[in-house]
């Protein structure tokens, strides 16, 4: 089992979610984060452009069985990539998931994902 973590633009959340559902990945966990990377985001403050050092981003975490890793990643990329070549589209991280437990049933392992 793998844990897939994606940092995406706030604006792409809906689209990523839809793509995942298309790919039959129904279970996800989402949170608000701020990121610093190559992207610069402008805000207006009293006639001045301000470039905050941290940009609001969305983090998505998905636990999947090994067989689903690729299609999950592809779905995220489809949903998160914006037109053109814009820094800030985000990153996907994959780590190994040793165990997964469904609290309701105490099931363990790939059943529980």
């Amino acid at each position, binding site marked *: 089992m793998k844990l897939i973590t994606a940092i995406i633009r*706030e*604006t*792409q959340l*809906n*689209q990523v979610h839809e793509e995942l559902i298309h790919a039959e990945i129904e279970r996800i966990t989402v949170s*608000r*984060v*701020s990121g610093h990377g190559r992207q610069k985001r*402008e*805000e*207006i403050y009293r006639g001045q452009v301000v470039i*905050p050092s*941290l940009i*609001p981003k969305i983090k998505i975490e998905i636990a999947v069985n090994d067989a689903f890793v690729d299609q999950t990643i592809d779905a995220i990329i489809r949903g998160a990539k914006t037109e053109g070549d814009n820094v800030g589209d985000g990153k996907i991280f994959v780590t190994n998931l040793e165990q997964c437990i469904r609290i309701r049933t105490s099931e363990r392992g790939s059943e529980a994902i």
Partner: protein
Amino acid sequence: MNRNLKILLSLPLIFISLGAFAQGTDTDHGITSWMLTSTALVLLMVPGLAMFYGGLVRTKNVLGTMMHSFTAMGVMTILWAAVGYSMSFGGNILGGWFGWSPDYFFLQGIDNSIIKDDAGMGIIPEYIFTMFQGKFAIITPAILAGAFAERVTFKGYVIFIALWGLLVYNPLCHWVWASDGFLFNMDAIDFAGGTVVHISAGVSGLVAAIYLGARRGNYKKMTPNNLVMTMMGVGLLWVGWFGFNAGSSINSGLSTAQALTVTQIAAAAGAVTWLLIEGFHQGKASALGLASGVLAGLVAITPAAGVVTPIGALALGFFASVICYGALILKNKLGYDDTLDAFGIHGVGGIVGAIFLTFFIRASWFDGMESYFFTGNRTMAEQLGIQSFAVGIAIVYSIISTLIVLLVVDKTIGLRSTKEEEMKGLDDSYHGERGYGMVNPQ
């Protein structure tokens, strides 16, 4: 002790003297005081509405939605001072389509004008009447904006409300409230803006919502970003509405007190009714439900505040909530996307108020009227006809002229947001800002 006081006096006197020594510029200080207060209270409704609406949209659109109200405060004020007051309260031109008086252009001719009563006694400076009425011209498009929240460009919005004010609001206001307006002269009752404000905003909003199409995404799954702020907003709206309704008496006496009393009771009746319906229908009585009931009650009592008794207010609040609740259920069936229910609450509530008030007019009113425009007593059925006619006119005129405005704006500068703008949200796309910095690490 009064040695210093005497000296001190020269301060207020400078200003007082400006008024007091000029010929015939004396006013009724008590009525003037209440009208000044009412003007402030109605202004308070604009931030109140911004908060009410702002809390209901999604996080990314909170500022953009609040800006709809605040920008109306800027744009409509200037337009009103320039031409709006003249178009609304000047003498009939173009066959009574709207009014015009050169004196009113940029309010240049009323710098010392005092509104007087029959006996020639000064009541209030005309400026106050102008400003009080101007607040209605601000809040009407701001209410309307709820119907197409979360999906219009800022530039387009500004042009839209400017044109809408000129083409829709000002004529309607003229017809209903100017002394030579044709609905006014038919004795259509609209105490504080049932047709002019709420029906026109609600119906025009509905037209715009349908014309522009629904928000992108599954709009039936979208939830409010800040109901807490929505509740604060409804609190300010309720308080401000006292100015709206009781101020419309242009008095500080019995008629004012009557208007204030029925306003309070109708709001409360609307609130309790909505809570009860929702409690029975859904098993839970929501805070937004209470807020909606308050609004429905306030909207319905608006045209009626001068003519009904407390019992009538109770009934109007009740019917407003029942019928608006039904209208919202129906909307979900019909499937158009009136984002914040400008039509469902203001349009429907305004219609309920304007029609149903007929059944609750206090007896003395019928006598009072005839001394002015009638030679005999009027029946309730006759008044019902008049009210229905006025409502019908307001609806038809709003639909047609709003469509024209929409077409003009849409075909020139554009009104609907692009997909990218809508996904990013109004705040980022048009204002370059975020509403709530504190929810992310800064």
